C-alpha cells in the first residue's frame, strides 16, 4: 500500500481557497437572464393571517413571479422527516397560520434582488395575533410538545436514589447556538427540458433536497438533479435548512423559464433557519462517599421550535449521551420535545450529544463540589470499564455494551502530559489570595457514539471511473464543507489503487451520479463514503487483475499493485498502459461501491439496541481566568488528547479537533441567542451574535492525536470519525470557569451556559459570596 493514506496532506482545495478561485454556489458566473428571489418573512411569532393580498407585489417594477401557498404544483411542504413544514404559509385564498417570527410567507422573483425586496414590501398582510409559546418554561406549562415524552431506562432508579448515601438535585440551562457557516444559504436552479430542473445548492444532503424539490414541484425524483461542489461551512445548518431555498429557486425557475437564485443575506439566514437546540436539564442523583453514581434521573427539555425537523433524532442523541463516559447502574432519562413559536431548531455538530453531555458533566462537577473532591477523581471512579473487562460496568442506559472504552487510558496520558495535578494545586493556592482575578482548571472526557441512530441512514454509495489514459474520477454521496472529506477520500482511493494522488479527481456531489445518499452528517462522511469508494476500487482492481490473468497467463498471486505500476510475474506495466489495455480488451472500467454499516440495530419502542458501531473518545484540560468584578473570562491554555483511531490524515484531524474545540468554547462561553418578548431574534448577524475570534483562542494549545488509538471495529483503515466529538472537549472550559468561581464562596456556583460575563456574575452570587 502507498503511504498516501495516513499522511498529513493539506486540504485538496487549499491552493484554490487562498487564491480566491475555489467556486462556491454564489460564485458561478450569473446567466444574463438570472432572476433573484426574495423571501418575505412573518413579523409575528404566532398569528392567523386574516388577509393576504399580493396584487401590488405582482405588478411592482421588474417583478417576474410571485409565489405563495397557492402557487405550488406539488405539496406545500419542505419537512424532512414528517410533513409539518409548509414552505410558504401565506395563501391569498385561505390566509394561513404563522408559527414563528421569520417564517417564510411568500417569495418574489425579480430581475434584481433589490427590486424583489422592494416589491415584497408592498404585500398587504394582516395578522390576527395569538399568544405565542416562546420558552421551554412556557411550553412545559402549556404542555406544548411535538412528540410524546421519550424514555430510556435501566435498573431501579427509585430504589437506587432512596438507598444512596448522598443525593443531590439541580438544574442546568443550556443555550442554543447558531451554526454561523460563513457562506450563507444559496440555491440556484436552472430549468431544463420537460419537467427537468437542475439545482446548485449549498446543502449537506443533496438526495433529500432532490426529493423535496420533486415533492414541491409534483414531479418524480428522476427529473431533479442536485449538485454540490463545496460549502463554505455547514456544521449541520445545511442538513435540512437549505431545502426551502432550493425548492423556492426550482419553483421560480420552472414558473419563469429562467434560472433563479435564492441567496439569503445574513440577517434573513439567521432569522429563518434553525439552530442548536436550547436545553433545560433537571437531575436527581444518588452517589456514594467516593462520588460513585448509584442512580440518576434526568429530565431533558428541548426547545425544538415550531416543527419537528430533525428534533426527534437530536433529542434521542441527547439521551444517548446523558451518560458520556460514565457507567450509570440505574438510570432514567426522560426527554420532552417542546413545541415553541420559534425557529425550528435543527442539526448542529454533535446533534444533541453536546447538551446531553453537558448535563452529566454538570452532575459530576456538582457531586465533586458536594464531596470536596477534585472532579477528576469523581470522573475516573465512574468511567465505563476498559475493553475486555468483566462486563459489569459496561452497559449503557439504552442497553448497549460499551466494548471499546479507552477513556481511562487517555485520561492517564493527558493528566501526565498536561501536568494537571500540580497545576490544579497551584491554581487553588493562587486563588486564595487573588483579589479580583481567579483561575480555574478542569479535565473533561468525551465518548461520542458513531453512526446515525436512524439505522437505515448508515449506507453510502460511490462511483469510480478509470479513463483509458489512467486518470481516475471518483464520486460519492458525501459533501465537502471544509472537513477535508474529499482529501481523505482521494487518499483512500489513491492508496487502494496505489497511484499518485494527483491522478485522482473528485467531482461535485451529484444526485445523478450516486443516488439515495445520506446526509453528510453524524461525523460519518469518511466512514461511510470512504468504505464505499474502497469497495469500488477493490472491484476495479479485481477486474484489472482478472484481465491480466486472462491475457498474460499469470495467476492472481503473481500480480502486485506497485506505485503507479503493476507487476505481473517478472514483468511490469504502468497503470496508464494497463488502463489502456483493459479498455482495448473491453473491460468495464467504471464501478460502483456500496457500504452499509454492520452490527447496528435499534428498537425505539423498547429503547434497546446497539445504535452505534463504535465510540470516539477524547479528553481536554482547559485553564481559564475570570475577572470576578466584570464576569469576563478567558482561556489561557488547553491540552487535548483525542482518539481518531489510525488517522487517515493527521493534519485534517488536528484541524477538526482544534476547530471543534473552539466552536464548542464559543457555544459554552460567548455565543448567546437572544429573543425579545415578541419572539423576535435580536441577535441575527455578527454585529450582535459573537462567535470566537483569534483573540479568544488560548495562547497555549497542545493538541495530540492519541498515539495508541486504533478502532477495534473494521472501519476504513481502522480510523475513527472526527467531525463532531471534539466540539464537546470544550466542556472543560466551562467547568474550568466553574472551578474558578467555586473559590468565591462555599455554595455551588451552578454555572449555566453560555458563561457570558452576566451569567458568571450570577454564578458568583450563587456561591454565597
Amino acid at each position: 500500500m502507498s503511504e498516501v493514506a495516513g499522511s498529513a496532506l493539506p486540504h485538496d482545495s487549499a491552493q484554490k481557497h487562498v487564491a480566491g478561485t475555489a467556486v462556491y454556489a454564489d460564485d458561478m458566473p450569473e446567466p444574463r437572464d438570472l432572476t433573484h428571489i426574495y423571501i418575505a418573512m412573518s413579523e409575528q411569532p404566532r398569528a392567523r393571517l386574516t388577509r393576504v393580498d399580493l396584487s401590488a407585489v405582482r405588478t411592482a417594477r421588474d417583478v417576474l413571479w410571485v409565489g405563495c401557498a397557492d402557487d405550488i404544483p406539488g405539496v406545500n411542504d419542505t419537512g424532512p422527516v414528517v410533513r409539518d413544514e409548509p414552505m410558504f404559509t401565506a395563501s391569498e385564498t385561505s390566509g394561513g397560520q404563522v408559527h414563528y417570527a421569520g417564517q417564510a410567507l411568500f417569495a418574489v422573483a425579480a430581475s434584481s434582488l433589490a427590486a424583489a425586496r422592494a416589491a415584497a414590501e408592498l404585500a398587504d398582510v394582516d395578522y390576527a395575533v395569538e399568544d405565542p409559546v416562546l420558552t421551554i418554561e412556557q411550553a412545559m406549562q402549556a404542555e406544548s410538545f411535538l412528540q410524546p415524552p421519550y424514555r430510556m431506562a435501566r435498573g431501579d432508579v427509585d430504589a437506587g436514589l432512596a438507598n444512596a448515601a448522598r443525593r443531590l438535585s439541580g438544574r442546568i440551562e443550556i443555550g442554543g447556538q447558531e451554526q454561523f457557516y460563513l457562506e450563507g444559504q444559496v440555491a440556484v436552479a436552472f430549468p431544463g427540458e420537460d419537467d427537468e430542473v437542475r439545482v446548485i445548492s449549498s446543502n449537506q444532503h443533496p438526495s433529500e433536497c432532490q426529493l423535496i424539490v420533486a415533492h414541491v414541484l409534483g414531479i418524480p425524483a428522476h427529473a431533479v438533479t442536485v449538485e454540490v461542489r463545496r460549502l463554505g461551512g455547514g456544521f449541520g445548518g445545511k442538513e435540512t435548512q437549505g431545502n426551502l431555498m432550493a425548492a423556492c429557486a426550482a419553483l421560480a425557475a420552472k414558473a419563469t423559464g429562467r434560472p433563479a437564485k435564492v441567496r439569503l443575506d445574513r440577517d434573513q439566514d439567521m432569522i429563518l433557519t434553525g439552530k442548536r437546540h436550547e436545553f433545560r436539564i433537571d437531575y436527581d442523583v444518588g452517589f456514594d462517599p467516593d462520588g460513585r453514581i448509584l442512580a440518576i434521573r434526568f429530565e431533558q427539555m428541548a426547545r425544538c421550535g415550531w416543527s419537528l425537523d430533525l428534533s426527534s433524532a437530536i433529542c434521542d442523541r441527547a439521551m444517548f449521551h446523558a451518560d458520556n463516559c460514565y457507567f450509570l447502574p440505574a438510570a432514567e432519562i426522560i426527554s420532552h420535545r417542546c413545541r415553541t413559536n420559534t425557529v425550528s431548531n435543527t442539526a448542529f455538530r454533535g446533534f444533541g450529544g453536546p447538551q446531553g453531555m453537558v448535563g452529566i458533566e454538570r452532575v459530576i462537577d456538582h457531586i465533586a463540589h458536594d464531596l470536596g473532591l477534585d472532579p477528576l477523581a469523581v470522573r475516573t471512579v465512574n468511567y465505563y470499564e476498559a475493553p475486555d473487562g468483566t462486563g459489569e460496568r459496561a452497559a449503557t442506559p439504552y442497553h448497549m455494551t460499551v466494548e471499546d472504552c479507552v477513556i481511562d487510558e487517555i485520561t492517564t496520558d493527558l493528566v501526565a502530559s498536561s501536568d494537571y495535578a500540580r497545576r490544579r494545586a497551584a491554581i487553588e493556592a493562587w486563588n486564595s489570595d487573588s483579589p479580583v482575578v481567579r483561575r480555574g482548571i478542569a479535565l473533561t472526557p468525551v465518548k461520542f457514539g458513531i453512526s446515525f441512530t436512524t439505522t437505515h441512514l448508515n449506507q453510502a454509495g460511490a462511483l469510480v471511473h478509470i479513463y483509458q489514459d489512467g486518470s481516475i474520477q471518483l464520486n460519492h454521496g458525501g459533501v465537502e464543507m471544509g472537513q477535508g472529506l474529499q482529501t481523505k477520500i482521494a487518499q483512500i482511493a489513491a492508496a487502494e489503487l496505489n497511484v499518485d494522488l494527483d491522478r485522482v479527481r473528485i467531482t461535485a456531489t451529484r444526485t445523478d451520479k450516486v443516488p439515495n445518499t445520506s446526509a453528510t452528517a453524524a461525523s460519518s462522511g469518511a466512514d461511510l463514503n470512504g468504505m464505499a469508494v474502497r469497495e469500488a476500487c477493490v472491484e476495479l482492481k479485481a477486474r484489472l487483475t482478472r484481465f491480466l490473468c486472462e491475457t498474460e497467463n499469470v495467476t492472481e498471486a503473481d500480480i502486485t499493485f506497485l506505485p503507479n505500476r503493476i507487476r505481473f510475474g517478472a514483468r511490469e506495466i504502468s497503470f496508464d498502459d494497463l488502463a489502456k489495455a483493459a479498455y482495448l480488451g473491453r473491460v468495464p472500467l467504471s464501478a460502483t461501491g456500496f457500504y452499509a454499516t454492520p452490527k447496528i440495530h435499534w428498537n425505539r419502542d423498547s429503547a434497546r439496541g446497539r445504535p452505534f458501531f463504535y465510540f470516539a473518545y477524547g479528553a481536554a484540560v482547559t485553564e481559564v481566568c475570570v475577572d470576578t468584578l466584570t464576569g469576563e473570562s478567558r482561556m489561557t491554555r488547553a491540552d487535548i488528547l483525542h482518539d481518531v483511531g489510525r488517522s487517515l490524515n493527521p493534519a485534517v484531524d488536528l484541524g477538526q479537533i482544534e476547530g471543534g474545540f473552539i466552536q464548542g468554547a464559543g457555544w459554552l462561553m460567548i455565543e448567546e441567542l437572544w429573543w425579545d418578548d415578541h419572539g423576535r431574534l435580536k441577535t441575527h448577524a455578527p454585529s450582535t451574535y459573537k462567535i470566537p475570534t483569534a483573540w479568544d483562542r488560548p495562547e497555549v494549545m497542545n493538541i495530540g492525536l492519541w498515539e495508541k488509538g486504533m478502532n477495534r471495529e473494521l472501519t476504513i483503515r481502522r480510523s475513527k470519525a472526527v467531525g463532531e466529538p471534539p466540539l464537546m472537549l470544550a466542556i472543560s472550559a466551562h467547568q474550568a470557569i466553574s472551578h474558578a468561581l467555586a473559590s468565591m464562596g462555599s455554595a455551588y456556583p451552578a454555572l449555566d451556559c453560555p458563561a457570558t460575563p452576566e451569567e458568571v456574575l450570577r454564578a458568583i452570587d450563587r456561591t454565597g459570596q
Partner: protein
Amino acid sequence: MAAIAFQLNGQDVELTGISPTTTLLNWLRYDKGLTGTKEGCAEGDCGACTIALRDQSGDWLPVCACIQLIGMVHGREIRTVEALSAEGSLHPVQSAMADGHGTQCGFCTPGFVMSLWVAQQNDALTGREQVCDALSGNLCRCTGYGPIIDAALGLDPTGSNSEAPDAVVSAPAQPLHYRSEAQQFWSPTTTDGLADIIAENPEATILSGATDIGLWVTKHAFNPDKIIYTGRVAYLRRIERRDGNLLIGAGATYREAAEALGELHPGLSPLIRRIGGAQVRAAGTIGGNIANGSPIGDMPPALIAAGGVLHLRHGARRRTLPLEEYFLGYGQQDRAPGEFIEAVEIPLQSTPSSLRCYKIAKRHDQDITAVLGCFSVDVADDAVTSARIAYGGMAATPKRAAAAEAALTGATWNRDSIGKAMAALADDFTPMSDHRASAQYRSRIARNLLLKYFHDRSGIAPDLPSEPLAMS
C-alpha cells in the same frame, strides 16, 4: 461628465452611470466577476470581503468591501485576492495559509489572506498579539485560528511594500461631484469646500467611514439622493498638539487616532484597539462616532471623561461646546442642518495619566459595548480634586455620572469613598435591558467598573492575563 476613477489590481477604472451607493463588494462580485472576495454578513463584521485599499496616506489598509460605497473609492487604489497570485504563483501569505492548514471550508480565507497581506505590508506581523490585532475583524468558523496564527507568525514580519502608490492615489486631489440619475455624490478635498457643500445641501447625508451608513445601505435599502463624503479632506484627518491640548480631526480614523494617541494619551489607545475589527478601525472615524449620537459609541464617553470640546462648523461660522452637551437625547444632537463636526479637542494629561476606559462586551474583539466606563479622577494629598466619569450603554446618550462625581469630589481617595460613589450611580442611571445585557447587569457593572478603576490606580492590573498560571 465626472466619473468615479480608481485603480483596481493595477488597472485604471472609470465608472459612470453607476449608483454611488453601490457597494464595492457587489461591484467586484457581480459586475467584475471577481468572486474571490466573499460576502459573509454585509455589515463589516466578518471580514470575508476584506480587500486592500490605499488612500492618500500611502499606506495599505484592510477594508470591508461590503460596506465601502463605490463613490468612496474615487482616487484610491484597490487590490483584491485575485491580484496576489496574478502571475501564477501564490504569494507567501497564500502559501503559508495553504501549506499550514489554515483553510478548511475556505470561504473566509481570501479575507484572512488580505488582512495578513496588508499587515505584512505595514510591517505589523511582529508577534502573536500583533497578528491577533490584524485578524480582529476576520471570523473563521472552522479552524479555531491556530493554524492561521501560526502561518502568520511564520511569515517575514516586515514585508514592506517598496512599490510607490499608483498615480491615481498620489496625484493632487481634485474634488469630485458625481451624478447618476437622481443621485449626487460629492467628494471634496478641502475643508472649506466641504463646508460650502454641506451648507448648500443641508439635507444631504454626510458620509465618513461608512461603518454605520454602509449598513443603512445594505440592511435597510437606504439610497439617498445626496451624499457628501469627507474622507478625502486631508485637513479633517489631522491630529496635532495645540496649546497643551490635542486636536483630533473629525475625519481621523480610529487607526490613525490610536497610533497618535498611543504616546500622547495612553488612557485612550487601549480602548480604541477594542473598537470594531482592524477593518472598521481603518475606515471608521472619530468624528463619525460622535456625530451619529449612538448611546453605545465608544469614543464619546472616553472623550467626555478626557474633557473633550467639540468644534462645529457651518459655512464659515465655527463654534465650540463641551462634548457632553452635544448629546441632547436619544437620536438628538446639537447640530444644525448644514453644520458638521470639524474636530474634537482634549487636554493633554500630565504623566501618569489618570484616564482609564473599561469596555465590557460579550466578546473581546469587534463587539459592541454593553457598558463602557471612562474615569479621570485627579488626586492631591489623598483627596480627590476633580472627577470626570462618563458611561456608555447606561442611558439614551453617552452621559456623565454627576452624582458619582459629586460623591467623589473633595472626598478622601480610598475604598470607602469609592463605595459611596458606586452607590451614587443609582441616582445617575436607569439603564435598559436588551440583547447585550440586562438592566440589572448594566447597573452592577457600572458600579464594579468604578471599583476596577480604584484597583487599577492602586496597582492591580485591569486586564485578564493571557498566560496560564506560571508554574515554579
